[in-house]
C-alpha cells in the first residue's frame, strides 16, 4: 500500500529547475528522512505535498503528486481541504499568539468545528500525542508564547495532529532546538510513526539514522538514492551518497 507518491515531478522557480524528474513513494506508518546539502531541493520537495510552494509566485510543476491515491493538484481539488489532511511542522516553532488551547483548536475552528466538548477532547488528545499534556494541562489558557522553544515545537506538532492528518510533513523540526528538546521531539516522532506517515527533512544525519525507516538523498535537485535507512548508511549504492554521509561534502 502507498500513502503518498510523487511521479516524474519537475519543479521550477521561474527559470530555475529546482526538482529534476523525481519519483518517490511513501508507505503508511513509516518515517522517511530527506537528506542532502542546502539548496538540494529537499524542502521544496516536501512542500509539494501540501502545496505550500504555491504561496511563492511564478512556479511551475510537472508530473503528479498523489496522497491516498488522489491527485492533490487536480483541478477540482480545494487547496485548503488538502492542507487540512496533511499536517506540517516547520523549522522554527511558529505558535500563534493565542492561548495553548486555542493554538491546538485552531485547525478545527477554521474548519467549522466550534463545539466545546469536541474541542476539549481533541485538544487533550492532541497534546497527549505530542507529549506535552503533562506539562501544560493546568495552564491551557496561558499564552503559547510563554512556552520554551521545545515546548512550542511540540505544541505545533499537537496543532498539526488535531486535524487528524493522513500525512505529517516536518521541515527540520528540531534544528532550532536544544539537545534535550531535540531528543524529546525525536522520541515523539518515533511514537507518532505508529499512526502517521511522516516525511522529515533534516540536516542532521545522526537524526536521520536514529528515527527514519527510509532515507532519500537529494543532490542538486535530483533524487540520487532512496532506500532503507540502514542500507543507505551502511552500504549506499551511489558514490555521492557515500561521500555525503561520510562528510566529504555538504
Amino acid at each position, binding site marked *: 500500500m502507498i500513502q503518498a507518491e510523487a511521479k516524474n515531478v519537475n519543479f521550477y522557480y521561474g527559470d530555475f529547475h529546482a526538482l529534476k524528474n523525481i519519483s518517490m513513494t511513501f508507505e503508511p506508518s513509516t518515517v522517511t528522512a530527506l537528506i542532502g546539502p542546502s539548496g538540494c531541493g529537499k524542502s521544496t520537495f516536501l512542500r509539494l505535498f*501540501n502545496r*505550500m510552494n504555491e*504561496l511563492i*509566485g511564478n512556479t511551475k510543476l510537472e508530473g503528479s503528486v498523489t496522497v491516498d491515491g488522489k491527485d492533490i493538484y487536480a483541478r477540482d481539488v480545494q487547496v*485548503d*481541504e*488538502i*492542507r*487540512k*489532511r496533511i*499536517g*506540517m511542522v*516547520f523549522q*522554527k516553532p*511558529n*505558535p*500563534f*499568539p493565542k*492561548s495553548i488551547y486555542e493554538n491546538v483548536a*485552531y*485547525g478545527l*475552528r*477554521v*474548519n467549522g468545528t466550534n463545539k466545546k466538548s469536541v474541542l476539549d477532547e481533541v485538544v487533550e488528545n492532541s497534546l497527549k500525542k505530542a507529549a506535552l499534556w503533562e506539562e501544560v494541562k493546568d495552564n491551557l489558557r*496561558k*499564552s503559547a*508564547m*510563554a512556552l520554551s522553544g521545545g515546548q512550542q515545537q511540540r505544541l*505545533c506538532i499537537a*496543532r*498539526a495532529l488535531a*486535524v487528524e492528518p493522513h500525512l505529517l510533513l516536518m521541515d527540520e523540526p528540531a534544528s532550532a532546538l536544544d539537545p534535550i528538546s531535540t531528543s524529546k521531539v525525536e522520541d515523539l516522532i518515533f511514537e507518532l510513526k505508529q499512526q502517521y506517515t511522516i516525511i522529515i527533512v533534516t540536516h542532521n544525519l545522526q537524526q536521520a539514522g536514529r528515527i527514519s525507516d527510509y532515507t532519500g538523498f537529494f543532490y542538486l535537485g535530483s533524487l540520487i538514492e532512496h532506500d532503507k535507512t540502514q542500507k543507505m548508511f551502511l552500504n549506499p549504492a551511489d558514490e555521492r551518497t557515500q561521500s555525503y554521509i561520510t562528510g566529504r561534502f555538504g
Partner: protein
Amino acid sequence: MTRKQLSQRIAFSTFTLISLVVVAILFVILGFIIVRGASVISWEFITGKPEEGMTKGGILPAIVGTGCLIVGSMIFAFPVGVLSGIYMNEYLGQNRLRRFINFMTNNLAGVPSIVFGLFGMALFVNYLGFGDSIIAGSMTLGLLSLPVIIRTTEEALKSVDDSLRTGSLALGATKLQTIRRVVLPVAFPNIITGLILSIGRVSGETAPILFTVAAYFLPNLPQSMYDQVMALPYHLYVLATSGTNMEESRPMAYGTAFVLIVLVLLVNLLANLLRKTLSKRVKM
C-alpha cells in the same frame, strides 16, 4: 585625545545639541500657549457658548464640532484605509499595481490641505448636495487622513511574521481566515497607531473644513450630520484674525489653542493606552 576621538566627540555634541533645540522649541510653543491660555480656562469656558461678539463666554460649540469631525472622519476613513492596507499587503504581491497604488497614496499625502478643502466643497458640498455640513467636512477630513491610515496598516501587516501565515494556511485555513484570525489581531495595535496619528491631524486641520463645514458663529449645538458646526482650529483663526473686537477676544484665542492642544494630547494618550492594552492581550 586623538583626532578620531575629538571628531567623534564634536559630532555627538552637535547631534545632542540639535535634538535638544528641537525639544526646546516644542516646549517654548507649549509654554507660550499654557501661560497665555491657562488663565482663560474655566468651567464656563469649556461648557459655555460664545457671547458678546466672542469676547466672553465659552467655546463648547467648537469643542463639540471638532469632536463630531474627529468621529465622523474616522468612521469614514478607518474602514476604507484599513481595508485598502489589507488588500495591498495581503492580496497584492510586489507588483506594478501595488507600486502604482503606493505612488498615488504618497501623492495624496502630499496634496496641500486647502486643495482637499476645495475638492470637498466641489464633490460633497455641491455635487452630492450635502451642503456645508458635518458629513461633508468629515468626508473631506477622512480623505485627508486616508494615506496615513493606509500606510500604517500596510506597515503593521508587513511586520507580522510570515511563519504565522504559513502555519495557519498549513492547517487548512483559507487566506481570509488567516488574515482575520491570526494576522489582524497581531497587527491591530500598530494599526491603532495610524488612527492616533490621523486623529491628531484631523483635529488640527483648518483648510479642509473652511468650505465644507465650519461656521463663523453658531452657538447652537448640531442636531444632525447635515448641520454646520464650529470647530476649534477655525474658531481660533476667527478669533485671531476677524473677530469683532480683536483685542478683547485675544485671550479667548489663546484659551482655544490651549483646549485644542490638550484635546490632541488626550486623544493621543487614550489611543496609546488602548494600543498597549491590545498588544498586551495579544502577547499575554
